[in-house]
């Protein structure tokens, strides 16, 4: 595989997830494009100059995250990831009543997630949305693996308690 093809593959595999992640962080699709582009350029430079990148996926995430944080800091915006209200949820369900119930539950959930601490929210996104392992999350966020597990554990339990209280599911 030529380096160009490798780069193409790497981009195809990761751009969507990275753009989603950067979009969540920056809340701006075009800045997200810039951040992801920068990450790929940095990746190229790093590998070209002989830098070792063991886990490109995690590395790209980490780079995008750091760039996003820098961008946000520069704009004096509090750097944290947020969950937007999901929009139309019914499409995924055959039974409309379930759809409505889910919609309600979803709003609750969105609120609950946004009520979490920023770090917990970020871990939640990385784990549940992007399927990253504890180790990868630890690498992306500069945390220890144990810490990731602990934060995730408390976040999920917080969500559970919140929603159970509200909906008593």
């Amino acid at each position, binding site marked *: 595989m030529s380096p160009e093809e490798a780069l193409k593959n790497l981009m195809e595999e990761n751009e969507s997830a990275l753009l989603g992640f950067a979009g969540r962080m920056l809340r701006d699709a075009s800045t997200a494009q810039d951040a992801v582009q920068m990450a790929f350029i940095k990746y190229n430079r790093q590998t*070209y100059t002989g830098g070792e990148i063991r886990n490109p996926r995690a590395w790209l995430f980490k780079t995008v995250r750091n760039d996003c944080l820098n961008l946000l800091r520069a704009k004096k915006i509090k750097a944290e990831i947020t969950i937007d209200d999901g929009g139309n949820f019914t499409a995924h369900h055959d039974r409309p009543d379930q759809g409505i119930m889910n919609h309600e539950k979803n709003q609750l959930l969105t609120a609950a997630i946004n009520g979490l601490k920023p770090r917990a929210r970020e871990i939640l996104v990385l784990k549940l*949305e992007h399927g990253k392992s504890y180790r990868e999350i630890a690498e992306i966020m500069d945390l220890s693996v144990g810490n990731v597990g602990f934060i995730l554990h408390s976040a999920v339990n917080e969500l559970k308690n919140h929603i159970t209280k509200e909906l008593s599911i």
Partner: protein
Amino acid sequence: MKCSKTSRLMTDMLAGELSAIQAKQLEEHLAACENCRKEFDELREIWNFTGDALRRNHQDLKLSDAHRREIFEAAADLPKLKLSPKMPSRFRWLELVASLIIGFGVLSIFLLPALNSAREKGRKISATSNLKELGIGAANGALPALGAPPESETDSSAAPAAAPESESSDLTEVNAGKDADKGGAAGKLAAEKRKDVADVYLRRAAAGPTGGPALQTLEEKPAVRDEKSFAALAPTPPLPQPPVKAAKVAFMKYKANQSSTPAAAPAASSYAYGVATIDKMDKAEVKQEGLKFSEEQASNVLIWKGVPEAKSLAASDALDRPAESSKKKEEFAASETFKVNLKLWNLTTVEDVRDFLKSRNCPAPAKILIDTDAGAIRFDAPYNVMTRIKGIIETLNSEERRLKDFKDGLPFTKTESKPFSTFSIDTDTASYLTAKKNIKRGIRPDPSKIRAEDFINYFDYHYRSPENSVFAVNMESAPAPFRPQNTLLRIGVQGKRLGPNINSASVYTVLLDTSGSMAYGERMELAVNALKLLSTKMTPYDRLSLVTCGGSANVLINNQMKTKNTLDMAVKAIEAGGVSDFYNGLRKAYQLAAVNYRAGAWNRVVIITDGIVKLEPEARAGIIGSIEKNRINGISNIVIGLGGDGDDKLLEEIAATGDGSYVFVDSENDVKELFAANFEARFREIARDVKIQVEFNPGNVAEYRQIGYENRQLSKADFRNDRVDAGEVGSGQSVTALYELRLKPGVKPDATIATTRIRYKNAEDMRVEEKSFVIDAGNIGRNFETASPGFKLASFAAEFAEGLEYPETQNIATPSGIAVKLRQLYISNYSKDEKVRELLDLVSRAR
């Protein structure tokens, strides 16, 4: 398990981050505890729901075309990027200057004669020839004279094709020195020095026959940049000037004398050369003031001698230079790079190369650059010497080609070209055991996986044990069994049996590969058995850690004492599955070993794997690197290989790097043998970095060939370099090496055939010891039949291995030929030796 402890585990379970043992425990608990089960179900629902919610609005996001294009453009720009760290921008224009200088130099060579044609002939001729020389000197000599950084040296020697580039960068260095005048303390210092030197130079210039009125002062500007003012300068009448610039002016003065025609280009170029030359001259002259001349400086002098004044000065100068240098300078012209396998010929240091050339009656040039890894060597030498060097290198190259040609019999090395054979000891037997397994199944073993030394070392030769030292070396020689015109030399090294410190405590860190492939056949069973047997060897002072690597690296036991429970629990949790995460498993194991390191104990990582692992080259290099680091810190390893279809080379490399051995086990018996009979040999070493060097006497031995040990070859210089890693020998272990020799006719009985030296680090105190042993022609047995049984056995095992390794090669005995002789040996001497019976069986099957 308590309910309070399960909560956290549930999250981890949902996240897929539980180890097999924990998952099992949790599942057992959930099956038993209703509350926890309910909680887990709720948690799972919220988990899935959140996941759905987060993923729901996922669109397939794409980078815009513009962004995408920019990434590729940036990638395409990278080659430029790579150059920049090596060459700071400051040097860019200097490089340009340098290439211009060369350009002008070439021009001047062609232009000068034309311009000077009107002038006196004799002068013209001398000037052009001098300039020509100077041109070559500057191009070829800049490197030796200035001692450019080693990086550029190796670069240029490794890639002769890149010669023009490297030359120009050499010149860059020359100018860089000049540039330093402009700023910085170092620059000032250099300027000071140059000033002194220039004074000396001026004094001589004044005394010289061509000495005339001095020229106008030149500004300290790069030569070519200032072409215009320079062109104007050349014909101007002489003016008084300060001594600082004297050196340059001295040269200018020559120019003015030599040619009254205003000739901008030649003048500029020769000025540039003048600068380059003077810069180099600084060094030579400074040294010369102390009346000392090294070879290297001599070459510097050669270059600056190209300056006409210098030549004329030399005659009148009190500090007369060697007379032959003026003769030499006519010859000094060639600089050439050759490709040759330097390691093979023991030419790993410049001293070795010098000695080698001297031994061939070839004068060694002053400047030799070698790059052993790339197999490149560069000489700067006069033409006549270079042609001789060329001849010598050509014979080496043709020898190399011959050594690679296995078709007509295995190649011999000529003793005259390489009297030393140096290798690291290797006590592994894995290659024999894998071959055995394959042959028994009716599969021809892969020739690339055959290592003859493993075959030879598998058998017991019952050498005499050393009485007072660590090793006894036993040499025996007799005609070769299948090629009686040749002589076989067997070198047997027997290690002592350890006394009391064999019972020092041990800290074992076991890495158990639990990847999916380990589920095949009885691999896992054998692995677990090995683990259990290892624990039976543990004393109450020993500690055990266990790491598994199926899917991810898990620590099941961390530095615990031997108790039945811990091991049983762990063994229950072991289950083969997933892709082997060998990289992280091994790293984890070594980390644990480092954390649990105990001084004075045997710290050892035990790696049990089938070798079916996928490693990127970088990861592989990383693993080997970290093993190496830990080896230096006193953590050794042992690799227990299973299955025989994995990455054999990797396992061997791991064992070799980690001061360990690689053992292949394929049956219950093998495992038992490892932990019963061979435990001490494998787990208790008596010496590390054991190297052997055999020096053959070129007077008596025409050619020789080592059987096996291809991967263990060292260079001559490695032998006494105690930083070079080599093999380990365990308690009571023996190692055997075989050589096939072609003796010269009419060897006298008292003539030395070979001297064997053994060098090792005593494992007790890491002291380096070296012993040597000699064998004379008189010790060579009259015929093969009267040789000792061990000698015969080793020669058969070796012949069998080489037959498998080089199936295409003529001249190697067929298995049936070996079987006939081996059967006799078995019946008469080894009828009770299981291993020999097995070998006989294999040889018969391999027919």
